[in-house]
C-alpha cells in the first residue's frame, strides 16, 4: 500500500477515489489520517467544532467492505469531509456556533449528510462558524463559540464568515471538501479569503433540511473544494428535490462538463471600475491578470451595469424580519445575551421591531429586482466580479471599519453583487485568482438560476490555465 503523505491531503477527489479503488490505501487508513490531521491542526485555525473520528472510521470500514466487493458508489466513496456546524447529525452536538446552543443535540440528520453518506463519503467532523451564521450582524471575527476563525495563510488574519471552518479546513488540507452555507456572503467571503474554490448553488437546488434556518428565502448550502471540477462532483450528489425542505426547487443537478458551451460563445458581463477603483490597490495586479486569463480563454467580456436597486437595504430588511421571527424565542428568553458579539445581540433584539410593511416592501422590490436581473441574463451569460474587494482583515479589526459615511462611488460597478445574487437566488462560483501581500484573492462568477454547469465550465477553463487553486498555505 502507498503511504498517505501531505500531497494526499490536497489531492483532487478523482485522485483520491482512484487510489482507493486501486487499493493504494484503504478508506479506513485515509479516514484515520484525515481525522488525526483535523484534530491536530483544526484547533490551530479555530476551525474544528466537533471531531467525529469514531464515526469516520466506522463509515470508512463500511466503504472498505464495499470496495472489496467492487461495489462502487461514485467519486465521493471513501472521501473524508466536514460540515459547517449548523447541520444536524443525529446524536451529536450541533451548536450553530453559539453558546446558547452549545448543548443542542438533534435526533435526525440533515439531508445533505444523508446524501453524502449514501454514496460513501466519510464525515470526519463538524466545522466552526460565526455564531448563528452571523444573524443580527456581527462586528468582530471573535463572534463564534470557537473563537475567531484564523486564516491558514496568516493566522493573524480572519478566515472569513460565516462558513469560517469550512473554508479554513479545506485550505489547510484538513478535509478533502466541506459543506458550508450562505445567506449573504457566507460562502463567497471565506472562500475568497482562504483561497479555495467554492460554489453557492441556486436557491432551492440543495435541500436545507436539518440546517439551522437564518432566512427561509435566502439560505443555501454549498461545497468548498479544491477545484471547480470537485465542486461539480459534490453538487451532483447533494442537489435534488426534498419534500422536507419547503424551499426545494424540485430539481436535480447533473454535472455535465462534456456538454459545456464553447468559451467563445459565452458573454461575460463585468464592470471595469470594480477592478480599477473598487478593489484594494495591492490586489489590482492579480485581478488584471485574472481578467486577462478569461479573455485569453475566448470569453467575450462586455461592460455591464447592474439594475439600479437598493440591494443591500432590501437584503438586510428581509434577513432581519425572517431571522427575528426564527430567533424570537432566543431573544425573548434573554439567552441571546450569551452570544459573544454585542452588536449582534443588539441587531437580533432590534429585528423584532421591524414593521411588517418594511418586510413586504423589500419582498415586493425583490420581485422587481428578479425581473430586471432576468432581463440582464438575456444580454450576458454570466457576471464576473471580485470575490471580495480586499484580502482577509486582521482578526482584531472591526468588520465595519471604513464602511459607510463616504460619498457614493461615481460608478457603483458590481459592489452589490453579493446581496443582489442572494436576493435573486443566483449561483456563484468562487475561483482563487492570485495573491496580494501573500494572501489569496478570488473572482466570483455569477450566473442565472440553475446555470451551475456554465459557471463550472468557466471555472474549469480558468483553472486549466492557472494554478492558484493548487497553492498551499505555509506550514501545512
Amino acid at each position: 500500500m502507498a503511504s498517505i503523505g501531505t500531497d494526499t491531503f490536497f489531492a483532487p477527489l478523482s485522485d483520491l477515489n482512484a487510489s482507493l479503488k486501486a487499493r493504494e490505501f484503504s478508506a479506513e487508513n485515509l479516514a484515520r489520517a484525515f481525522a488525526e490531521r483535523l484534530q491536530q491542526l483544526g484547533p490551530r485555525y479555530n476551525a474544528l467544532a466537533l471531531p467525529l473520528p469514531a464515526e469516520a472510521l466506522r463509515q470508512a470500514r463500511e466503504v472498505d467492505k464495499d470496495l472489496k466487493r467492487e461495489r462502487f458508489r461514485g467519486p465521493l466513496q471513501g472521501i473524508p469531509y466536514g460540515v459547517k456546524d449548523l447541520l444536524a447529525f443525529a446524536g451529536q452536538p450541533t451548536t450553530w456556533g453559539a453558546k446558547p446552543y452549545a448543548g443542542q443535540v438533534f435526533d435526525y440528520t440533515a439531508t445533505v449528510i444523508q446524501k453524502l453518506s449514501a454514496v460513501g463519503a466519510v464525515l470526519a467532523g463538524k466545522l466552526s462558524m460565526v455564531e448563528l451564521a452571523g444573524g443580527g450582524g456581527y462586528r468582530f471575527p471573535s463572534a463564534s463559540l470557537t473563537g475567531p476563525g484564523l486564516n491558514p495563510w496568516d493566522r493573524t488574519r480572519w478566515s472569513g464568515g460565516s462558513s469560517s471552518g469550512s473554508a479554513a479546513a479545506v485550505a489547510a488540507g484538513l478535509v478533502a471538501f466541506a459543506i458550508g452555507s450562505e445567506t449573504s456572503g457566507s460562502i463567497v467571503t471565506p472562500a475568497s479569503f482562504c483561497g479555495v474554490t467554492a460554489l453557492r448553488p441556486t436557491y432551492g437546488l440543495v435541500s436545507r433540511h436539518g440546517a439551522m434556518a437564518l432566512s427561509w428565502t435566502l439560505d443555501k448550502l454549498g461545497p468548498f473544494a479544491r477545484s471547480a471540477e470537485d465542486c461539480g462532483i459534490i453538487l451532483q450528489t447533494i442537489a435534488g428535490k426534498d419534500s422536507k425542505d419547503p424551499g426545494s426547487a424540485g430539481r436535480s443537478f447533473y454535472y455535465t462538463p462534456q456538454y459545456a458551451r464553447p468559451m467563445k460563445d459565452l458573454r461575460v458581463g463585468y464592470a471595469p471600475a470594480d477592478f480599477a477603483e473598487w478593489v484594494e490597490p495591492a490586489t489590482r495586479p492579480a485581478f488584471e491578470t485574472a481578467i486577462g486569463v478569461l479573455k485569453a480563454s475566448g470569453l467575450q467580456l462586455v461592460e455591464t451595469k447592474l439594475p439600479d436597486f437598493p440591494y443591500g437595504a432590501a437584503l438586510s430588511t428581509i434577513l432581519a424580519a425572517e431571522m427575528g421571527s426564527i430567533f424570537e424565542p432566543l431573544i425573548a428568553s434573554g439567552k441571546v445575551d450569551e452570544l459573544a458579539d454585542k452588536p449582534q445581540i443588539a441587531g437580533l433584539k432590534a429585528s423584532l421591531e421591524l414593521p411588517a410593511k418594511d418586510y413586504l416592501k423589500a419582498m415586493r422590490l425583490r420581485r422587481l429586482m428578479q425581473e430586471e436581473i432576468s432581463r440582464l441574463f438575456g444580454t450576458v451569460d454570466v457576471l464576473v466580479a471580485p470575490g471580495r474587494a480586499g484580502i482577509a482583515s486582521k482578526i482584531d479589526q472591526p468588520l465595519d471599519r471604513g464602511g459607510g459615511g463616504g460619498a457614493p462611488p461615481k460608478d457603483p460597478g458590481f459592489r452589490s453583487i453579493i446581496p443582489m445574487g442572494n436576493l435573486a437566488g443566483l449561483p456563484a462560483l468562487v475561483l482563487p485568482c492570485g495573491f496580494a501581500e501573500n494572501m489569496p484573492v478570488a473572482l466570483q462568477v455569477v450566473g442565472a438560476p440553475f446555470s451551475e454547469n456554465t459557471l463550472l465550465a468557466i471555472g474549469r477553463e480558468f483553472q486549466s490555465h492557472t494554478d492558484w487553486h493548487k497553492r498551499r498555505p505555509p506550514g501545512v
Partner: protein
Amino acid sequence: MKLTRRKLATVLASATALAAQQPAPTPAATDDLKAARDRLQANARALATTPIPMATEPAFQFKS
C-alpha cells in the same frame, strides 16, 4: 409571624438593594441597540426611494 414596621422596612430595603443589583443595560449595549435601530430605519428610507407598482406582489418563489 407578626410583621413589624421595622421588619417591613428591612424587607423593602433588601428588595430595593436586590433590584439595584440587576444588570441595567450598559451604555455600550444601549448604543449598540440604537445603532441597530438606526440601520433598520436607514434601510427603510433606502427602500422608499424605489417606486413599486401596485400590482407587484412579494417574491417568495424563484424560477429559472
